[in-house]
Structure formats: structure tokens, C-alpha cells
């Protein structure tokens, strides 16, 4: 009886809201509870800076310890510049930029994990810094800033699906472009970059570039992401096709990626294809209910995955050579699947550090002078 009476009392207890003038004043002062607050922004900025620092150290290591003309420092420029751009746009009230900040952080997280776990030993120490910095940023920002409107991205339905699809496409684009540029980083030395692709000469730089599968997959994903942000149907179709192609190429060993990295890429590709299904079904007349792609449980799982990846970047460093060494062939594991399948032994660190394979005619000891005749020129 007393319980029911207490409930009655609580129901009749009226609390007045603040006057509307306070809301108007807040609006005029530009207050926005959806944007990251000062503390969150500070953490996110610190995380992005740590990631960027990791890439800077990687570039320095490449220039100082390895070959100054190898070109990896050049390849690192892409994620490094993206991270600096993200730091500058962290507090921008624009959905497109907020999405891009997330994409840059996710991409850096994946690159960090790959570098520390399956990358060259000489660079692997920078992997945890890159991954943990990016992870801190994502944990600090969470969904802040993603509830904003954007000039072109203002969907009424499937907002969550589209947002996630766009962010994943952007992140994939950056990761694949980075991977493709790394492949092409050997343009300054003799021998073709790994992978099959369209070869062409960059006239002004007198360099030879090969449009390897990661490069063109990255370019297609970038176009798809741009189209999704503009809410184009063709972009989603392109995204599905690109993801199917990426999964097939990755698992078919055509992307020059080690097996675990290829599996990761194939998984994210499958997730993106699944994300697109209800949107396209709805666009073609199906009455699919618009449910958020990540419920509370999904968001928790995503955070768990984030922390797991951060942990993996640290654990990856400690993996003994006989385990990780099988896959520790090149920065992103060139041709590793072959090594694992054929059971070949890990290559000596000297050759691994140079990204060459055992028996490769390009390989030479560190104290041997670099060939100069073919630097920057066509084969």
C-alpha cells in the first residue's frame, strides 16, 4: 500500500523546466552538446598527435636506418598528413569532416596493428603508438559530432547505416591507398613493385608507378565514399562491387597482403556489403524497418573490438619470431600467404628489413653501396 502511495506521490511531483530564454541564449552562444567537449577534444587531439608521431618516427627510421631513397618515408606522408588534417578538423561543426576524422583514426588503428604485428621489425615499435593513439581518439570521441547535419549528407532514413558505410569506405580507401603507395615505395630502386597492375611513368618526377590492385581498389573506394556522402545510389552499388572485389582479391592473394591482414580486409568488406543490403532493398521498394546498424550491444562490441585491436598492437610486438616471423615479410606482408602455405622458413632480418625476399637479386648487404644507375629511371 505504501509502495503504491509513494508511486502516486512521485507521479504528481512536478518539476518545472528552465525558461526557454536559456535555450535561446545557449543557441546564440553556439553551444552544442553533440560536439566533443573540451576534455574529449583534448584526449582526441592527444591521441591523433601520438599516432602522427608514430608515423613521423617511422619516416625518420626509414630515412636514417634504412635506405634514404627507398621511398617509405614518402609513403608515410599520406596517413601523416591525414592525421594532421584530422587534428585541425576535430572541432569543426561539419558532419563530413567529423566522419572523415573517424575514418582517419580507424585506418590508422588498422595500420598500427598491421605494422606492429606483421610489419618489419625495425618499424614495428611505432605500431603501438599509432594504434593506441588512434584508439584513444575513437574512444574519446564516440558518437560526438556524428549527429550533425551536413550540406549533402542529410538522410531521413538509414542514417546510421549510411554513416557507417561512408566511414568504413573512407577508412578502407585510406588503408588501401597507403598499402598501394607502400608497394610503389620501391620505385626508387631497381625491380618492379609487387603485384600486378598497369605500369606508367610519372613524367616530372621521372618515376615509374604501377597501379597495383590496392591502389585502384583504394581509388574506387574513395569514389564510392564520396558518392555515399552525396547519397547517390550508384555509390552504394559501387561500394558493394568494390567490396566484393576487395574480398575476392584479398583472399585470392592478389592484394600483396599477408593472410591475417587479407582476412581482416575481407571481413570489413563483408560487413560493408551487409550494411548496404537494407538500404538498397528500401531504395528498390522493400519496406525494411529502419533500425540502427549498431544497437547498444553493437556499440559495446565495437568498443571492445577497438580495445582488442589496441591490445593486439602491443601483444604483436611481443610475438616470437617463430610465430609472427612467418608473416613478417615486408611492411604489409608481401607474399606472406605463399610462405605460410609452402612452409618456408622466415627470412633473415637484414633482408626482411629491406623488404626483399630470399634469393632476390635486388637484395644486397647494408654496407654495399646503393646502385645509382637506375635510380628514378625506368627499368
Amino acid at each position, binding site marked *: 500500500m*505504501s*509502495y503504491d*502511495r*509513494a*508511486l502516486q*506521490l*512521485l*507521479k504528481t*511531483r*512536478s*518539476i*518545472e*523546466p*528552465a525558461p*526557454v530564454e*536559456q*535555450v*535561446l541564449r*545557449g*543557441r546564440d552562444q553556439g*553551444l*552544442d*552538446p*553533440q560536439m566533443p567537449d573540451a576534455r574529449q577534444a583534448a584526449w582526441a587531439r592527444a591521441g591523433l598527435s601520438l599516432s602522427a608521431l608514430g608515423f613521423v618516427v617511422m619516416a625518420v627510421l626509414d630515412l636514417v636506418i634504412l635506405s634514404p631513397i627507398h621511398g617509405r618515408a614518402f609513403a608515410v606522408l599520406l596517413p601523416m598528413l591525414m592525421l594532421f588534417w584530422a587534428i585541425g578538423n576535430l572541432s569543426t561543426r561539419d558532419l563530413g569532416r567529423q566522419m572523415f576524422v573517424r575514418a582517419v583514426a580507424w585506418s590508422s588503428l588498422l595500420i598500427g596493428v598491421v605494422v606492429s604485428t606483421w610489419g618489419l621489425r625495425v618499424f614495428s615499435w611505432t605500431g603501438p603508438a599509432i594504434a593506441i593513439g588512434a584508439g584513444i581518439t575513437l574512444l574519446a570521441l*564516440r558518437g560526438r559530432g556524428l*549527429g*550533425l*547535419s551536413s550540406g549533402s549528407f*542529410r*538522410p*531521413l*532514413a*538509414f*542514417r546510421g547505416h*549510411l554513416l557507417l558505410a561512408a566511414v568504413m569506405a573512407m577508412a578502407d580507401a585510406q588503408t588501401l591507398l597507403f598499402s598501394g603507395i607502400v608497394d610503389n615505395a620501391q620505385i626508387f630502386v631497381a625491380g618492379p613493385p609487387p603485384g600486378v597492375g598497369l605500369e606508367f611513368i610519372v613524367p616530372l618526377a621521372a618515376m615509374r608507378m604501377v597501379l597495383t590492385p590496392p591502389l585502384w581498389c583504394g581509388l574506387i573506394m574513395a569514389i564510392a565514399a564520396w558518392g*555515399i556522402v552525396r*547519397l*547517390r*545510389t550508384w*555509390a*552504394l552499388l559501387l561500394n558493394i562491387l568494390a567490396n566484393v572485389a576487395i574480398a575476392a582479391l584479398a583472399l585470392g592473394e592478389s592484394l600483396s597482403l599477408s593472410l591475417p591482414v587479407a582476412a581482416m580486409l575481407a571481413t570489413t568488406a563483408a560487413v560493408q556489403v551487409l550494411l548496404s543490403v537494407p*538500404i538498397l532493398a*528500401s*531504395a528498390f521498394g522493400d519496406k525494411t524497418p529502419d533500425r*540502427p546498424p549498431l*544497437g*547498444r550491444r553493437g556499440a559495446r562490441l565495437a568498443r571492445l573490438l577497438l580495445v582488442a585491436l589496441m591490445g593486439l598492437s602491443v601483444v604483436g610486438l611481443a610475438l616470437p619470431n617463430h610465430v609472427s616471423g612467418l608473416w613478417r615479410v615486408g611492411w604489409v606482408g608481401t607474399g606472406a600467404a605463399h610462405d605460410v602455405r609452402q612452409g618456408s622458413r622466415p627470412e633473415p632480418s637484414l633482408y626482411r628489413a629491406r623488404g626483399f625476399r630470399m634469393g632476390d637479386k635486388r637484395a644486397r648487404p647494408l654496407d654495399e653501396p646503393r646502385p645509382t644507375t637506375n635510380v628514378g629511371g625506368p627499368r
Partner: protein
Amino acid sequence: MSAAPKLVAVPAPAPEATTEGDDALRELYETHASAVNQRLYWLTGNADLSRDLTQDTFLVALRRLDTVKDPDAMGSWLHGIAYNLLRDHRRSQQRRRGLWRRWRSRNESAELAEGDAGEPQLLRTLEGALRGLDADKRDAFVLRQVEGLSLEEAAALLDVSIKTVSYRALKAEEHVRAAFDSTS
């Protein structure tokens, strides 16, 4: 030349911040603010916090008015924003406070309730019992027992299954009833 078709429907551009915009906000606030504030009060048990969150809710709503799918469902849309902001607030509080701090804070809250001489004993007992619940159970209890929402409505707002809401509300009710039994 017509523009390329969009993948999903997009809203009309949001109105500029003008006198008409202010009037529209006033109208929206007068219509919905009390209900939003009241629910937030029941969910938090803190009048000041509920007022702050109500203001935040309308600040967010103001920026997202152009994304409202169904103007008739404005109320539930606002309650959804309010609940998301409340969850954000709780998460940030959890991060900020360690276990011992949370324990101290809970006791401080209880002391505040005890010290409020204007409230009848029953209400104080109820508020004390609600503070002893974790956030999920409290939410389910408030939506089901205080507001009288259906299981479907409560589940939709909390973004959990109907079974989960039902279980949480039941457990919360048991807890609150036990608090009354022990005081009597």
C-alpha cells in the same frame, strides 16, 4: 537539368535562425519541455541535472529539426534525444568517478534525500530505493511503473528487447518493494 536521384529521402533545408525560428522554438519548448524534463527528473532523481539535460535536448533538436521524419512523432523524437544525452552523461560520470567515488556519491545523494525535510517519508523511501538501483533497472522501472509505458514503447526507447525491459522492471519493482517492506 534535373539533379541525380538521391539514395534515400532528404529533408527540406532547415529554417534560418530568425524571429520566426525563435517563435517555432518557443512553441516546441512550451509543448514538449515539461514532459521531457519530468521524465528526465524521474530517470535521474536530480532536478538541476534534468533541467540541464532538457536544455541540451532542445539545443540538439534545434540543430536537427530538418531530420525529423514524422512531425507528429516530435515528442518521441525529443524523448529519444533526451535519453541519448542522459546515457552520454552517465557514461561520462562513470568514467570520471572510480568505484569508491561512486559509492561516496551515492551516499551523498542519500543524505540529500534524508535532509529534505519538506518531502514525505514515503517519497524519500522511494527515492532512496531508486538510487540503490543501477541505471538500466531504474530506467525500466520509471518507464513502466511511473510513466505507465507499454513494454513495446519502453523497449523501443531503451533500445533493448521486450523481455529485457520486462525482466529489469520486475527486478526493480522487487527491489523497491523490499525497501518499503524493510522500512515498515
